[in-house]
């Protein structure tokens, strides 16, 4: 993983590396139609490259754009028949079928109410279509997905912090785990759900994430030390 340069929308990236004619593009990039074999930048930020053929951009974008197979945290906003509408922070509400939960059948549906929080996977995400969520994997098992308990607390964080928390190299969640007894669900859409035994712990954790979000540029471990 290496950073190449700072880029602005409209810039063209040449000398694209590929494996057997395939190049993988992450967020903020699209194929340039005017020139063959080049990429067009659509978002300001730092251009990153991971060998052999992956390119993406990291900027300070606040709007979440759904992508296939993303794991997100969402709030149920509407229930109509078998379909649920979920707010995942994208431009459009995502749809989630009541039958897409583990063990759900037509007769026996899970108890999900408006206002509940779910940890779900994006099955479909397309520019022109409503995003579609599921709470089961391809073997119809829930795994870590599903409805999150009502005791927890939901907060919004920046997309960059969400990505930082989900990076295995970042020890913040682990070191907090040594101090607090808590469970957490971090969605790549910038929504974070926490649950702990004591309300005080939840408040402390909330404060940790708020401060790390504000001091995203500074070293996270330093901030962590100052709070603990």
């Amino acid at each position, binding site marked *: *993983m290496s950073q190449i340069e700072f880029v602005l929308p409209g810039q063209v990236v040449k000398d*694209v590396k*590929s494996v057997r*004619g*395939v*190049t*993988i*593009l*992450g*967020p903020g990039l*699209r*194929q340039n*139609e005017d*020139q*063959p*074999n*080049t*990429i067009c930048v659509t978002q300001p930020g730092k251009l*990153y490259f*991971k060998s052999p053929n*992956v390119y*993406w951009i990291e900027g300070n974008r606040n709007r979440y754009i759904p*992508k*296939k*197979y*993303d*794991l997100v*945290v969402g709030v149920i906003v509407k229930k109509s028949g078998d379909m649920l509408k979920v707010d995942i922070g994208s431009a459009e509400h995502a749809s989630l079928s009541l039958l897409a939960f583990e063990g759900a059948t037509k007769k026996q549906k899970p108890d999900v109410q408006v206002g509940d929080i779910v*940890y779900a996977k994006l099955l479909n995400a397309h520019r022109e279509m409503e995003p579609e969520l599921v709470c089961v994997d391809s073997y119809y098992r829930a*795994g*870590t*997905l599903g409805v999150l308990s009502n005791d927890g607390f939901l907060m919004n964080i920046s997309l960059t912090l*969400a*990505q930082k*928390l*989900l*990076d*295995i*190299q970042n020890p913040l*969640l*682990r070191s*907090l*785990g*040594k101090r*607090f*007894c*808590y*469970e*957490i*669900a*971090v*969605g*790549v859409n910038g929504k974070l759900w926490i*649950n*702990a*035994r004591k309300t005080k712990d939840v408040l402390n954790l909330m404060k940790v994430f708020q401060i790390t979000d504000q001091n995203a540029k500074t070293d996270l471990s330093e901030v962590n030390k100052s709070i603990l």
Partner: protein
Amino acid sequence: MTSQNQEVQLSKTILEMKFMKKTKEKVEKALEDKEGNAMYSNEITEEMRRSGNLVFVSTSITNCKNLIDGRLSFGGMNADIEKIMANEFAKLVEQEEKKKEKDVTDVEMAQGYSTLVNNMAKKFNKKSKNKNKKSKKGNDQVE
């Protein structure tokens, strides 16, 4: 003289005959394919020239940065989640710790180096002693 490369073509009157029905279909299809190729070959090359030979596949940031599953539990808060974590998250953490760890600690490195230096020193000492002995022997023979 007719060139051998030229394909043998059946005349129209023969193809019209009743027993030549299947062959007629075959010939007609081949002719159509030929015309189709000639028609579309120009367009295909133009389109290809514009889009290049690379295929671009879009993916999420999760795959770019190798992000982990965000549903975690610590300190026995949720036993089910921790069971799943033991399979995936724990392994990833272990790998990460290993990366950070040095293969050989500084103390071990220092000790290893000092013994190596001693060994080498002994070797050189032996060699020089041998040389001394040899030279003495040589001297004896001459005498």
